[in-house]
């Protein structure tokens, strides 16, 4: 019911609704999308909305924009259960769950300051992704990032 009301308040014609974002992560999703106070995009954000399936969630709605694969992968790292809804002509034209990639490249900075990927060498960071509680293992130094992945996002 609450969701239906939401739609009535903020209907968008074309754009993207990122639903089932882990509660508290909406601002980080905006950060991933590069949305700052100075961008002109029309955005609405709902935080701590109650949801039958996951207790409480955040929702981000963006007008006239579809997401790039890399943005979706980053969202998966901080909120693996999020769903991406493509809105066209006020209706849901497509829906998919974000999916954790098996490898992430140039997306996360290694938390080991002494890692070769944090030097001026021409390599980009690469991590193997382990599911469950998400764990990122640097393929260079083998350092594992488990917490505060959002702080390490590039």
């Amino acid at each position, binding site marked *: 019911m609450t969701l239906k009301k939401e739609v009535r308040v903020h209907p968008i014609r074309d754009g993207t609704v990122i639903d089932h974002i882990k509660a508290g992560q909406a601002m980080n999703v905006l950060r991933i999308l590069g949305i700052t106070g100075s961008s002109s995009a029309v955005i609405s954000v709902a935080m701590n909305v109650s949801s039958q399936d996951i207790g409480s969630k955040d929702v981000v709605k963006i007008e006239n924009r579809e997401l790039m694969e890399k943005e979706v992968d980053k969202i998966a790292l901080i909120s693996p259960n999020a769903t991406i809804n493509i809105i066209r002509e006020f209706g849901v034209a497509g829906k998919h769950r974000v999916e954790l990639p098996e490898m992430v490249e140039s997306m996360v900075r*290694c938390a*080991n300051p*002494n*890692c*070769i*990927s944090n*030097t*001026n*060498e*021409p*390599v980009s960071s690469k991590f193997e992704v382990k599911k469950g509680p998400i764990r990122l293992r*640097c*393929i*260079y*130094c*083998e*350092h*594992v990032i488990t917490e505060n992945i959002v702080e390490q996002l590039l």
Partner: protein
Amino acid sequence: MNIDRRHIVSMKDFTRDEIDVVLERAIKLEPLARGGRSDILAGNILALLFYEPSTRTRMSFETAMLRLGGSVLNLGSKEASSVVKGETLADTIRVISTYSDAIVLRHPSEGSARMAAEYASVPIINGGDGAGHHPTQTLLDLYTIKKESHLEQLDIAIVGDLKYGRTVHSLAYALSLYGANITLVSPQQLKIPDQIKEDLKAMGARVSETENLDEVLDSVDVLYMTRIQKERFPDPTEYSKVVGAYKITEAHLDNLREDMIIMHPLPRVYEIDASVDDSAHARYFEQSFYGVPIRMALLTMVLGVEV
């Protein structure tokens, strides 16, 4: 199972069978390491790229190569090379690949050897990447245990800095492939990270921990001592206390199991008193010699030469 012409970066790249192949080959080559002459590597050039000081690793690679008839190229001092002009490691590796048949790399950054392997057109052997891996050390440790004790049903105590000493982590990892019974002996501040302990157990090692060195002296087959670095202790009095508690001296010798061997990757500082050197337990000098047959074995493998 094919280590021929492959990079040697981390012990995690090895299966137990592959380790056994390396150890068997080292047994074959040991007589040559003891002063023989051979030309099986004649015509091959090994480049030694050491961005950090090393005595044992560098010299034992050189000896291994020279005794098998190969040649070595040294990077030389940092000042004399273009490293000082700011050339990236990636570029240096690409260039040196065209001058040599294999490269041994020691570099201060973790992951440098893995990256070098991506850029090299010849095999890279990791001679130590920062606080990361040092697989040839682990292999020579395993060889020492095989020769001087036994790898099956092994009871080993690893003593000292188990937190930062990542070569200890590789050793424990490799030993767990053999189902070893590992006792980790360290002060509270230098305990092995939980994550690594869990990984070892998951791999089939039996792992226990203690702070008390005396507890293990009469029960283990191998006592593996490591250096405790002063830098790890903000408080110097705390450091002296710890150093005193994790030191083997003549006074301990009577309590040791007769066939127990004492190992140390060297250089030692205070961990083993010189009075222990002539005892029947000491094996640390043999251990550093065994670096030669092990490195001979690895060189023949990465260079694709039959033995």
